[in-house]
């Protein structure tokens, strides 16, 4: 067991964990923050994307011990976040989700796009989204939602 | 009977062992306190330690301001309001958390939330409430004084409600030459189910619902109340009563803790739970009985009772409870005081007073233990006055079988039975003559033997019109039941009432068996979940077997018709040629099993006839007795006691019961209900009392100072049944869950007074504690010395 101290969604957390525990399983099974989903556990599908120190990372291939001393934000931690509030509304209005399983990771990735690339066009948005799989929507609503938020933020 | 139940003893009348037993025996039952959820928080309450005061300030422990909530911190949570249409009724809103004022000791002032109950209690302890104390209204009689303090500033007195009946007594004056006056008190106490109240609340985002597991008898009422007082749509609330460890009435009402838990789980976004501890129950749950009576009986020298004149006062506590209000007890007292007796004139005034005590709730028997006690004790007083055996007076004055159905002087519509017969039978059972002989032969004058009895009628499963006349927030209508044939020919039965010891998972299955002949083992009874069951006002007023049982029978008959249509097709014969018999659909051409029907409907619908009912093999049907004035159960109890006049201790030597609850569904369960009820009655008669000092501080907050009836207090009951089916209900069933508690205090009180008659002493206040018995003896001795002097 290894001791682990970090911030999750603003809350200080200390825990004793097996080194082999992934950050995703840590937030899900130990912290019961089940909004973070597992879609492949090898870093391809993006469903498990969370913020580490403000940057999106794959929580399935990042061991919890590697998150020691960091600040983690999961989908549950964005309630007062303007870009996320806009994205949620935009996803809703653009039918950017069906089964909802990819949605949390998709939103975290989308937030990175709209904040890091305020001028991204459709091609760039699609390129940046290449690391997040959705099996339901064909990405149409997702791309439109992100573009609409970029537009709003420019205005 | 048209129904297809086979007759191999699993239907109505069979002593079927309970389906629900094994999980309890295995320790696998799931009570509210057994639930766990990730991230759950525990609630603990800061409760008022004064009876009456203004709240000056609430100081939260430093650093924990976000973990302690007062009413002001909980926007959108409305006080509970229970309206009543009774003339002059003054309902007082019941705030889940005190607003501005506290009105009884134990009233919730603030709620504290933490990871463990201990930590939550730490917060409660560290929260400082500053009060400006006000004079408390503790006794219901003092409450009437014009200069008595007011609980509710906007009232001009402390009177919740008054009822009157005022006949002209002059027409009996010349015949009613014997006038007997008495004053009685029945003490306040607590219901004490072994599982206290318990709430577990969680917001389910998937269904966008407040999920509340709560220890309640009335999940659908709780749902409606929560929606109303939390400002939610009804569809956003799902209430589940899991296994419930006894109710007896205190779980038939919406509790402040339920409203608070609902608000908290939504705003904290975490599951919250509260498990009432015994001290909380004894302090805040000291909420039943407490009546006061001035009774006058006008009778002929031959013992014919012509008139009854009574002033009743009821201590209703501080607030009105949802949905049944705190006026119910008064209204019931008014209507039930004359009992099974045929009177010429009736004058009655009930006054329901508000006091600085917990809000009064309807406890098993609701008012009737009080009125039966007052009436029956006075009848024995009359008997002593005119030197006649009281059972003869009872038999003489009771409504006779040939008079039924009969509208009583208090407008109760008695349906069926033979009341005097129950008296004769119980007198035989107790062996009155032998006891009299024993008394005559008695040598030991320090241990006096006495015999006493009590009779009553209990209006059960009273329906729409009755509750509507009380104008309460919740009027029962057509009880619903849903039955669903499963693909293997089993049955799912869904009822909105809730079973918490009454054995309905068994008795309701017996109803289905009676109609369909399906083995109770193959019937799954689902109850206590607003998400799974049709609407019902729930389990109270001894209504479940009559109402939900009746609805079950009706739904099963519709299902039978639908199955017959399918079966006729499968058998290639006419609809009229088939009928449900013994768990099959039979005809001259052969038979079809329920499993076959299930297979065809679910798995091979290509084999269905064209005229099949597209509603399928799932049926929701409703039922209400006509008329819905209620089915009247009655009984006579008799007991033999020994009173130790040196210590004042009372010992029950023998106890006999003759009861009539119409058609009996399951004798084992009926007897269990009766014994349990009678033992609670013994508690009321001899042991249980929630005492208060002159400041309104409770004196009984642990089982050390609150006496519960134990195995040694309960006698070996002897019971006999009469069976007069009600003409108004399915199968003639009458309710009987509450009756056992009703006549016990009267029977025991009468037995004591019979024992003491030589001394001329009478007990008139429950519980008949040794202190009260000795006081009565002392008073009588003084009187005699007074006369002698």
């Amino acid at each position, binding site marked *: 067991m*290894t001791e682990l101290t970090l911030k999750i969604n603003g809350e200080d957390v200390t825990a004793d964990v*097996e*080194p*082999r525990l*992934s950050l995703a*399983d840590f937030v899900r099974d130990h912290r019961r923050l089940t909004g973070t989903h597992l879609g492949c*556990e*090898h*870093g391809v599908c*993006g469903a498990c*994307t969370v913020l*580490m120190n403000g*940057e*999106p*990372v*794959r929580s*399935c*291939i*990042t*061991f919890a*011990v*590697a998150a*020691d001393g960091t600040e983690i934000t999961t989908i549950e931690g964005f309630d007062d976040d303007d870009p996320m509030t806009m994205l949620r509304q935009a996803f809703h209005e653009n039918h950017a989700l069906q089964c909802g399983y990819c949605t949390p990771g998709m939103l975290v*990735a989308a937030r*990175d796009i709209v904040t*890091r690339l305020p001028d991204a066009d459709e091609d760039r948005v699609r*390129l*940046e989204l*290449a*690391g*997040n799989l959705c099996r339901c929507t064909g990405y149409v609503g997702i791309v439109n939602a992100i573009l609409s938020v970029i537009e709003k933020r420019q205005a | 009977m048209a129904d297809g139940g086979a007759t191999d003893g699993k239907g109505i009348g069979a002593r079927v062992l309970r389906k629900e037993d094994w999980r309890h025996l295995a320790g696998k039952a799931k009570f509210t306190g057994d639930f766990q959820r990730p991230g759950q928080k525990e609630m603990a309450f800061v409760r008022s330690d004064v009876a009456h005061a203004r709240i000056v300030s609430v100081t939260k422990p430093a650093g924990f301001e976000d973990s302690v909530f007062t009413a002001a911190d909980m926007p959108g949570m409305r006080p509970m309001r229970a309206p009543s249409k009774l003339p002059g009724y003054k309902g007082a809103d019941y705030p889940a958390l005190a607003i501005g004022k506290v009105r009884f000791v134990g009233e919730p002032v603030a709620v504290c939330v933490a990871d463990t109950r201990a930590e939550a209690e730490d917060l409660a302890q560290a929260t400082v409430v500053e009060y400006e104390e006000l004079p408390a209204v503790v006794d219901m009689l003092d409450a009437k004084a014009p200069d008595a303090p007011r609980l509710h500033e906007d009232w001009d007195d402390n009177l919740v409600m008054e009822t009157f009946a005022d006949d002209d007594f002059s027409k009996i004056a010349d015949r009613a030459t014997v006038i007997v006056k008495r004053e009685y008190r029945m003490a306040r106490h607590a219901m004490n189910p072994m599982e206290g109240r318990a709430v577990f609340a969680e917001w389910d985002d998937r269904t966008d619902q407040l999920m509340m597991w709560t220890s309640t008898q009335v999940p659908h009422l709780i749902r409606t109340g929560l929606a109303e007082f939390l400002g939610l749509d009804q569809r956003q609330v799902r209430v589940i009563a899991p296994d419930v460890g006894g109710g007896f009435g205190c779980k038939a009402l919406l509790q402040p803790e339920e409203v608070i838990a609902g608000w908290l789980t939504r705003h904290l976004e975490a599951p919250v739970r509260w498990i009432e501890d015994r001290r909380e129950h004894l302090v805040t749950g000291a909420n039943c009985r407490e009546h006061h009576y001035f009774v006058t009986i006008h009778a002929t020298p031959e013992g014919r009772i012509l008139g009854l004149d009574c002033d009743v006062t009821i201590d209703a506590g501080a607030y009105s409870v949802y949905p049944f209000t705190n006026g119910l007890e008064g209204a019931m007292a008014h209507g039930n005081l004359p009992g099974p007796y045929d009177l010429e004139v009736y004058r009655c005034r009930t006054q329901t007073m508000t006091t600085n005590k917990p809000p009064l709730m309807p406890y098993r028997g609701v008012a009737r233990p009080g009125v039966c006690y007052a009436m029956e004790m006075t009848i024995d007083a009359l008997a002593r006055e005119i030197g006649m055996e009281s059972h003869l007076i009872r038999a003489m004055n009771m409504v006779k079988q040939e008079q039924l159905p009969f509208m009583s002087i208090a407008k109760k519509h008695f349906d069926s039975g033979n009341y005097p017969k129950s008296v004769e039978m119980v007198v035989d059972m107790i062996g009155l003559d032998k006891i009299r002989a024993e008394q005559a032969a008695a040598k030991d004058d320090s241990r006096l033997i006495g015999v006493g009895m009590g009779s009553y009628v209990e209006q059960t499963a009273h329906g729409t019109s009755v509750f509507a006349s009380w104008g309460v927030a919740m009027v029962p209508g057509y009880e619903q039941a849903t039955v669903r044939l499963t693909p293997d020919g089993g049955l799912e039965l869904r009822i909105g009432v809730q079973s918490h010891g009454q054995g309905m998972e068994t008795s309701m299955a017996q109803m289905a068996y009676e109609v369909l002949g399906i083995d109770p083992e193959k019937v799954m009874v689902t109850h206590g979940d607003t998400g799974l069951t049709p609407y019902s006002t729930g389990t109270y007023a001894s209504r479940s077997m009559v109402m939900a049982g009746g609805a079950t029978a009706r739904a099963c008959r519709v299902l039978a018709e639908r199955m017959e249509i399918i079966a006729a097709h499968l058998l290639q014969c006419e609809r009229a040629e088939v009928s449900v018999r013994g768990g099959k659909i039979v005809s001259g051409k052969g038979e079809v099993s329920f499993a076959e029907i299930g297979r065809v409907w679910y798995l091979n619908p290509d084999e269905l006839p064209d005229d099949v009912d597209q509603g399928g093999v799932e049926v929701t049907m409703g039922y209400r007795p006509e008329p819905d004035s209620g089915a009247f159960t009655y009984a006579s109890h008799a007991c033999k006691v020994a009173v130790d006049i040196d210590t004042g201790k009372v010992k029950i030597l023998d106890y006999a019961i003759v009861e009539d609850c119409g058609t009996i569904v399951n004798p084992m369960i009926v007897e269990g209900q009766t014994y349990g009820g009678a033992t609670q009655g013994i508690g009321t008669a001899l042991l249980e009392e929630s005492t208060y000092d002159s400041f309104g501080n409770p004196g009984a907050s642990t089982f050390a100072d609150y006496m519960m009836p134990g195995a040694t207090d309960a006698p070996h009951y002897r019971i006999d049944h009469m069976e007069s089916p009600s003409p108004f209900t399915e199968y003639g069933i009458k309710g009987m869950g509450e009756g056992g508690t009703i006549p016990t205090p009267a029977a025991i009180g009468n037995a004591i007074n019979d024992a003491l008659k030589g001394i001329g002493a009478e007990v008139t206040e429950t519980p008949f504690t040794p202190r009260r018995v000795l006081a009565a003896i002392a008073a009588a001795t003084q009187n005699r010395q007074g006369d002698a002097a």
Partner: protein
Amino acid sequence: MKSAKFDHQRMVTLEEAVAALGSADGEARIMGGGQSLGPMMNLRLAQPDLLIDLSRVGGLDGIEVAGDTIRIGARVTHARIEDGAVPGVTGAYMQFVASGISYRSVRNRGTIGGSVAHADPSADWPSALLALGGDVVIAGQDGERRMPLDGFQIGPFATGLGFEEILTGFELPTLGEGAKCGYYKVNRKPGEFADAIGAVVIGSAPRVVCGATEAAPFRVVAAEERLAAGAAEISVADARDMIAAQDPGFDDYDLQIHAVALSRAVGRAFA
């Protein structure tokens, strides 16, 4: 799909880390960003007994220009390079390469040192850096040593690193303004590992790399000579012959796409 058991040690100094490598019983692995190792461990394809965590070791994430070399710490992430942390023409080339590595959320964790040490033949850095040339900086029990990128990778997942050595950084040439760079990666989806890589850097002398092979990326000698002789393009057909000449064991399709990658990389260099 969960990793097998392992021990985890957080190091503060390189010395500790090297010592831990030496004293470990069983297999010890250095963990950088873990973005290559993580998936393999979840799949139990890699089951080290000990993971040595360098995240607290100082001095591994610097980027300094010293004369004609740029020193880049092993723990510099792909994302930093993508965002332009490396200056000059070299930086522009590396920025383009980095932006095509996996996905942003992986680039935020994945490091250039980890990628080269892991030596996945289909990864971008081994080919891209080989085209740049320069040295790998290595820490061992006898202190620091350097090894040229030429010959550093000796096969799939195999390098010149000793068992008790740690890759700490790179010393890469600072390309002049006139330098030409072209990088072409054949894959079917952005971020995927490459099916074929062509990398061309024409600084002091042309360096042409054929990457994403079954083994280590290799320099295409004939192509370098052709460019040195002043050619500004190489046809796919010629590229096929040049690559085939070095006998990489490709079937026709692999030969084709590697040739196309090389040809188009040259095209980009001169675009």
